[in-house]
């Protein structure tokens, strides 16, 4: 084997490309391309993966029969369950809870705390996690949380920005709740001891972001979700709320048309647990790991759409499930970090997307779909992208501009996570730009809810990314952590209220599953696909080809 040399930083040909960016930097300090008109937006969106042909098909079964959804989503909605009636023994109940929360990210954890605040005892709440408590997209949220709490801002402005960004498809009353409860949520976090970036005078430091008309983005360096979540988890653990880890839910249990429990499966040993509950909150997050249209993703390992699959079988209606969010700036180089998130806060702080000719070609803070489509156009239509050694294309995100605009030392203070990530590959984002390309980021739609996180199925609530309605067709930056917090709280409060009124015996069964399987068969769906998939599979093809299933 010849001696191996690791490429330190950028290879020579990319270095030459970077020179072009450096040359035009001076000119670009005072030049920002204008924002697009609505017409220009519509034009560029034609190339967005959501609108480019070939990505979607009709759902053939269930409450959303006839609606379009991404192929990868339909594949899972039209898949057979992992268990059938009779596979599990439902006569022995392992946990009998008031509230079962499936998914312990920001939304689920917030729900548990508020349910507890509203009088449900800690031992009557059960939070179950597929991986560890907190292995979720929430903790990867870098940029921030929106809340209209400055004098010049108002909840109405926040509302308009939110629905404009969502292509006016948002559910009005749900979006209203999101913006109206935002300041209250910020106050709650401050009181629990979350540390937010501050101005010198102690006011919350706030920034612009894509689609915002007013500086409204609160952040904790570039570890916003992590800071918010670890504070809540600390509070959760202190209160000793019941928690299971590595126990994904693989099916809901029902009694007639209402949900009454779930089957949990031990990822490590394979045994199952039966939970009965008066109310269930699904907070399982999104679907980045489905790699829709073959895009890499910013999402965590467990983002596999399980919650929607389970709820859909139990009769829950979906909404805006066709709208996929691609974050405009995922890493495109080096290969080890392809698809990783480069927070929008970078652009909010002055970094510009720049093409191979060193030109700033797009207003840096367009709504995400418009920004993403513009970058794809630059790379694949105008051919002004930069090609990496492994054949990926991307444009530059000119990060050194940030310090020119905000002063030396700013990046280290505001983006320690970014610096750290690139430093491992000998790239200094203070001196050199980084290569970016859109990456699969967010499930805009999901299980439809009302303003309390309630679904059309009795006993079932949802909160966070798994839900649909609040963001319409496109979520704004800083509205996802906010969504988790606002509707986690609402779901916690609403279920607490509900369980107090619930008396009498609840049965648990898998009857709904039988019905669903029947419908699949009637629609002619072949029994090759099974769901939920729980985790993606990245094993090497060579290893898989020689695997023998012995145990």
């Amino acid at each position, binding site marked *: 084997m010849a001696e191996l040399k690791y490429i330190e930083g950028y290879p020579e040909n990319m270095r030459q490309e970077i020179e072009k960016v450096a040359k035009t930097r001076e000119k670009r300090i005072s030049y920002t391309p204008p924002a697009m008109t609505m017409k220009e937006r519509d034009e560029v969106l034609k190339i967005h993966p959501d609108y480019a042909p070939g990505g979607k098909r009709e759902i053939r079964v269930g409450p959303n029969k006839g609606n379009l959804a991404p192929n990868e989503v339909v594949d899972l909605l039209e898949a057979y369950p992992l268990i059938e009636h009779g596979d599990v023994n439902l006569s022995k109940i392992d946990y009998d809870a008031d509230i079962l929360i499936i998914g312990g990210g920001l939304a689920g954890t917030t729900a548990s705390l508020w349910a507890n605040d509203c009088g449900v005892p800690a031992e009557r709440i059960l939070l179950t996690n597929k991986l560890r408590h907190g292995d979720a997209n929430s903790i990867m949220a870098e940029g921030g949380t929106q809340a209209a709490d400055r004098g010049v801002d108002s909840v109405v402005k926040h509302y308009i920005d939110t629905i404009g960004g969502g292509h006016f498809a948002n559910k009005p009353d749900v979006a209203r709740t999101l913006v109206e409860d935002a300041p209250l949520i910020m106050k709650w976090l401050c009181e629990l001891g979350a*540390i*937010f*970036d*501050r101005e*010198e005078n102690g006011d919350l430091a706030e920034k612009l972001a894509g689609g915002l008309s007013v500086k409204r983005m609160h952040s*904790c*360096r570039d570890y916003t979700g992590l800071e918010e979540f670890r504070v809540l988890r600390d509070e959760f653990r202190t209160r000793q709320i019941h928690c299971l880890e590595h126990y994904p839910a693989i099916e809901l249990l029902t009694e007639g048309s209402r949900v009454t429990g779930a089957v949990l499966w031990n990822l490590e040993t394979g045994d199952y647990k039966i939970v009965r509950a008066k109310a269930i909150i699904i907070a399982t997050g999104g679907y980045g790991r489905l790699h829709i249209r073959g895009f890499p993703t910013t999402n965590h390992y467990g983002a596999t759409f399980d919650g929607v699959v389970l709820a859909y079988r139990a009769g829950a209606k979906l909404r805006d499930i066709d709208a996929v969010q691609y974050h405009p700036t995922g890493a495109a180089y080096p290969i080890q970090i392809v698809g990783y998130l480069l927070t929008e806060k970078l652009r909010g702080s002055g970094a510009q997307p720049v093409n191979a000719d060193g030109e700033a070609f797009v207003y840096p803070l367009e709504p995400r779909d418009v920004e993403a489509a513009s970058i794809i156009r630059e790379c694949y239509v105008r051919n002004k992208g930069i090609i990496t050694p492994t054949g990926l294309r991307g444009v530059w995100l000119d990060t050194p501009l940030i310090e020119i605009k905000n002063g030396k030392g700013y990046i280290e*203070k505001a983006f320690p996570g970014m610096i750290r990530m690139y430093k491992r590959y000998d790239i200094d984002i203070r001196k050199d730009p980084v290569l970016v390309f859109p990456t699969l980021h967010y499930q805009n739609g999901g299980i439809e809810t009302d303003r309390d996180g309630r679904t059309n199925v009795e006993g079932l609530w949802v909160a966070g990314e798994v839900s649909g309605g609040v963001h319409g067709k496109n979520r704004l930056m800083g509205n996802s952590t906010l969504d988790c917090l606002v509707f986690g709280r609402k779901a916690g409060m609403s279920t607490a209220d509900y369980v107090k009124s619930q008396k009498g015996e609840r049965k648990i069964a898998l009857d709904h599953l039988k019905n669903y399987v029947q419908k699949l068969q009637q629609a002619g769906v072949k029994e090759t696909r099974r769901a939920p998939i729980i985790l993606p599979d990245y094993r090497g093809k060579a290893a898989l080809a020689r695997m023998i299933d012995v145990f």
Partner: protein
Amino acid sequence: MTTTKTETPKLTGTENIKIPYYPGCTLKTTAKNFENSAVAAARALGIELLEIPRWNCCGTVFSLTDDDLIHHVASVRNFIRVQEMNDYGLVKNENRLVTLCAMCFNTLKSTNLRVKNNAEDLKKINDLMYREENYGGKVEVLHFLELLKSLGFEKIRDRVKKPLKGLKIAPYYGCMILRPQEIGIDDPEDPTIQRDLLLSLGADSVDTPYKRVCCGSYQTVKEKNIVAELAYDILSHARKEGAEAMATVCPLCAFNLDHRQKEVKASHSDFEEIPVFYVTQLMAIAFALENECYGFDQNYVDPRPLLASKSLIK
């Protein structure tokens, strides 16, 4: 997040001599009155006690086990910080490290002596801390009282604006600045350094044989009564000799003599409370410094009635 402020009060004068200063944990918590008064008094004398960056706990009680080198790492790391202050130009050719806390002083100086006299130990510690620069053995650990003495008590007398006239103070030394002899800053049998300082402030110094008796030290954590008995002896003897208050430079002695008076009172009905000062608090009063640096709220027995009776405070 806002950036961290330095933990010492802001510098004012620019011509002051800057000397690296090691505070220790107690001075940042239960003995803030010691630090605040000392830093202010030093400044009044033209000395800037510059808190060493990234200092760590001294290691508290130095280890009595011969081969337990790990316990000396903490102190040596602080000496490296002093070297770094010189490297980075925070101070110029200044190898002195001043401490206030008697316990820290004793611990730091013991370690320093050991590694200065034992090249092999020093090498082992340096090797263990490979991420740090090597400690070269040049730092000199000084107690604040020694610094004052080297400055000359005359100079202190010159700075006094409000002599502590008629205030009868019994200096109390305890163990940590006297023993063992190679660490001590004064005659372990008959120390006088605090007396000289008190006289230069215009106070009357009351001598008592109990000035160098142990206060009970860490027994205070588990055996409050042992400490209360020792405190009773020390304090009532001072009273008998005519003292109206005590002076000390050790936060642990101060705690045992001052705060344990609660237990002393409970077991001795004849006992009369007596205020316990850090000697630096008395300096601050005599120098007529800002009230904020006195920190009497942290004293258990409130010394303000006594001071007011002598017209030293309003």
